[in-house]
């Protein structure tokens, strides 16, 4: 016990990977064993991260539960882990969604061993990004997470999976190329990858590099970081991999992709871009806000135009993640003001909330797809009387996504909009315009969500699903168990957000 309490973060981080290695030695054909083993293995980090949550002291500045081990001494990189309020909420989200996604995958019967192992490796990869306090370690985990996701899409995905998985891989790797180079540059300049040291020195760095003024290099490096993270978020116009990857991925893969992987990008903005490039972020905040607003508006329009239920949900991620970046851009404009803090609180909470609602939505799409083998909205219709419980859950989750007051999406989107509008009114008028346009986008959020509900649940019933062998069956207990924790959190944050906002806000006040 003593070991765990002093190595809490590394235990959470490496437990899934070790469990995956143990799985290697399980017999090949025992699908049930693989599933339960993976579920149990993913519950351990969840419980440990609850311990982490309750032992975390939000009013203390800086990182907690820090651990440091030599890793690559030759280039000054070490396995340095630590969490603050920002990363803690993301760690909790990851460890919560992984067991849920694994439980959601219980319907998979094809090569369960490899599938579950990849999922556990994926969890380690994602957690590593959130815990890393070393730039190189951050990058290592950032890239490592790609591999399991690639194979999950490529092997267990639907018809167009080859195209989608390669596009996902090449897009993300291509996007991170600039990040890789910028990370190398920072390493060469400072002889260390320690995030705190680099943050202190880089923002004050002025000496020319290779005969080129530092400001030029900083601008280029800033955009290298931004593009890497913008691809992941994804920000318009870097989003085109997302609808493909989401649509083709297996259900649980989409849940994790939308629930956690997109947050890696937003987290990168918060953890690296804002602290490392305060001046550049302020200078280019307008451009970022523009892209964010474009993502909000086009994401909503794109979503509204879909006839594929899963694609509709996929585009909604572009729309919702746009609010995260809008909040970040507003904060970059007016760093240090109260408005900026409100916007950031909203952005971080929106990351958490979108994780819950998007995972839920993708799961619900998966539930109906498994029964009907179609995702075409035109082939549904009037299913509510056939599956009342499913319908109720779908409406509930959709409403969270829509931003209905009383559910979690409202809180975070309100905070983002309030913050960025405040920035607009008090300091940078253009932000007010952007906020107003974003509100129009929000209107279409309502439109596409209602469209989705209408096409699936309401309208004239498609008789095809009412009788005979195609008769639609109700959502089963396992699937309800998957949804319950998500729904509880959605409601809880909607009604009483301060348990999590407290942690986030204190981190924001200390960080920015």
């Amino acid at each position, binding site marked *: 016990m003593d070991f765990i309490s002093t190595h809490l973060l590394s235990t959470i981080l490496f437990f899934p990977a070790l469990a995956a290695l143990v799985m290697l030695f399980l017999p090949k054909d025992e699908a049930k064993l693989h599933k339960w083993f993976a579920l149990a293995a993913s519950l351990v980090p969840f419980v440990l991260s609850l311990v982490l949550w309750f032992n975390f002291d939000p009013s203390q500045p800086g990182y907690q539960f820090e651990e440091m081990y030599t890793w*690559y001494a030759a280039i000054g990189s070490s396995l340095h882990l630590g969490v603050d309020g920002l990363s803690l909420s993301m760690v909790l989200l990851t460890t919560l969604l992984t067991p849920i996604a694994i439980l959601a995958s219980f319907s998979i019967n094809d090569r369960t061993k490899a599938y579950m192992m990849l999922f556990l490796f994926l969890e380690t990869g994602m957690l590593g990004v959130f815990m890393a306090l070393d730039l*190189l370690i951050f990058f290592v985990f950032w*890239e490592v997470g790609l591999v399991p996701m690639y194979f999950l899409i*490529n*092997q267990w995905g639907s018809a167009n999976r080859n195209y989608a998985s390669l596009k996902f*891989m090449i897009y993300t*790797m291509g996007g991170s*190329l600039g990040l890789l*180079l910028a990370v190398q*540059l920072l390493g060469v300049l400072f002889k260390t990858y320690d995030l705190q040291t680099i943050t202190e020195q880089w923002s004050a760095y002025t000496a020319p590099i290779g005969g080129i003024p530092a400001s030029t290099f900083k601008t280029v490096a800033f955009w290298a970081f931004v593009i890497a993270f913008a691809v992941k978020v994804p920000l318009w116009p870097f989003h085109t991999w997302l609808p493909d990857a989401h649509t083709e991925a297996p259900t649980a893969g989409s849940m994790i992709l939308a629930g956690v992987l997109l947050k890696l990008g937003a987290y990168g903005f918060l953890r690296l871009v804002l602290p490392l490039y305060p001046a550049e972020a302020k200078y280019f905040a307008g451009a970022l806000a523009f892209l964010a607003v474009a993502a909000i508006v086009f994401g909503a329009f794109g979503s509204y135009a879909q006839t594929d239920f899963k694609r509709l949900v996929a585009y909604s991620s572009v729309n919702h993640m746009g609010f995260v970046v809008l909040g970040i851009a507003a904060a970059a404009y007016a760093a240090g003001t109260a408005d900026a803090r409100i916007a950031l609180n909203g952005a971080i909470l929106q990351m958490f909330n979108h994780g819950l609602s998007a995972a839920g939505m993708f799961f619900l799409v998966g539930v109906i797809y498994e029964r009907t083998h179609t995702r075409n909205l035109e082939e549904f219709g009037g299913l509510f009387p056939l599956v009342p419980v499913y319908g109720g859950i779908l409406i509930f989750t959709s409403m969270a996504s829509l931003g209905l007051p009383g559910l979690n999406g409202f809180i975070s989107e309100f905070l983002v909009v309030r913050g960025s509008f405040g920035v607009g009114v008090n300091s940078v008028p253009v932000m007010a315009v952007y906020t107003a346009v974003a509100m129009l986008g929000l209107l279409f959020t309502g439109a596409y969500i209602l469209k989705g509900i209408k096409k699936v649940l309401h309208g004239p019933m498609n008789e095809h699903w009412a009788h005979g062998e195609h008769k639609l069956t109700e959502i089963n207990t396992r699937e309800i168990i998957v949804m319950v924790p998500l729904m509880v959190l959605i409601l809880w944050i909607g009604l009483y957000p301060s348990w999590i906002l407290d942690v986030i806000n204190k981190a924001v006040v200390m960080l920015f």
Partner: protein
Amino acid sequence: MNFPVLSAITFTPMVAALIILMMPSHRRNETRAVALASATFALLLSLWVYFSYDQSLGGYQFVEKYNWLPALGISLHFGVDGMSAPLVLLTGVVMFTGVLISWGDEDPHVKAGIQDRPREFFAFLFLLAGGVFGVFVSLDLFMLFFFYEIAVFPMYLLIAIWGWVVTREYAAMKLTLYLFVGSVVSLVGVLVMYWTQYKNTGILSFDMLVMENAGFSQALQIAWFLPVFLGFAVLGGIWPFHNWSPDGHVAAPTAVSMFHAGVLMKLGAFAALRVGIMLLPEGAKYWSWLIMTFAGIAVVYGAYIAFVQTDMKYMIGFSSVSHMGLVMLGLSTLNRDGLTGAGVQMFSHGVMTALFFAVTGMIYDRAHTRMIPELGGMMKIMPFAGVGFIIGGLVSMGMPGFSGFVAEFPIFMGVWQKQWLVAVIASISIVITAAYIMTNIRKVFFAELPEKLHGHVGDITVLDKIAIVTLCILMVGLGLFPGLMVPMVQTGVENILRLLGGA
């Protein structure tokens, strides 16, 4: 500890080659067993050297010196430093796994591995291995040359006799001509160095530790660096002299491809470093921009050509050009990070391509084709080989957590310190590599098994699996724990930096 371990390593394969030649040719399995036993012995010795090398002392260790031809100043002078010890280990590993995968399966339906005259095959292969060990441990320039030629010459026979019927004669001849021309050019440079030293100091010696202090003038260093460096670097597959290498890889039988790409190309890079950079440091500084340009082109061009190949072996062959370009890129930086990365990349790439060629050979032996469009579904038939190839692919892409990243990262850091533009351009290769590796993996291992291959393609043997596991453990182990090798390479780099005047 007085056991002459380096001589033992060098001469074990050669003695084994003699013993194998004396065995009756119909005792095929006994021949293979002797080969495996001596390869294992060499591997154990190289592991011993690797792990008992004292990193805190650095410098040359396990030194042995015997007079050979004192009148000309030639001696059998052996020793390893942090740069060569990993390469000795690499050679041991490739030799061991190469024998394992050549064992094959005598079943006429499968006929994998080497079934045609295994006795002569192993004898030549071991002669080659002995030559390779000799180059890595030689501290005497003459001996280095001697072993270098011993390593190159069996290559011709191995390819021409056991190679791919379609191109083996062409490829063997091309390879041999390229390499001999390269080494002759280097030899002239070496002789110039030898006589200049005699003129300067009155010492007749090929000993490299003596030659370090020969006081070559700057003009001589600048004039002779390029011939010496490039002459050796031909074997390292440096652009634009890389042309022989993909042809040679493709034509060679599996174990020889493993040796060829895994070890032989390192021989070129290593000799270019030892003789070119370490003995002519001023020339290296003067010409580093040119080497860097060549290497930068090789990195991107090699990756791009690999991307358009449809023959798996050609694809891997060109990816080797790209990855050896990274080694040369690291060498050309002449700074601590770049050289360290180059040293680690030599090991990492050796293990990786050995694995690639091994798996490709296993597929070819069973499916009788290497054309990517004609293959598919191998993951179901040989899952072990599939997973191995995927791990190799991740190394090749420079994925963090695997040895390729550990090696490439410092190389890029070194390049940043020299010329940032090259780093930016060379980084493009990472994405191209990812694209062709992923496409290849998807097509060969996951796509539908073609009609033609149904039925007659079977799984790999246990020995094949042992070889794959050995190689994978090295790549993952080094990727997760760079401390296993990097500090050792750094001790070797310190010595190079000292010769370069502490750059």
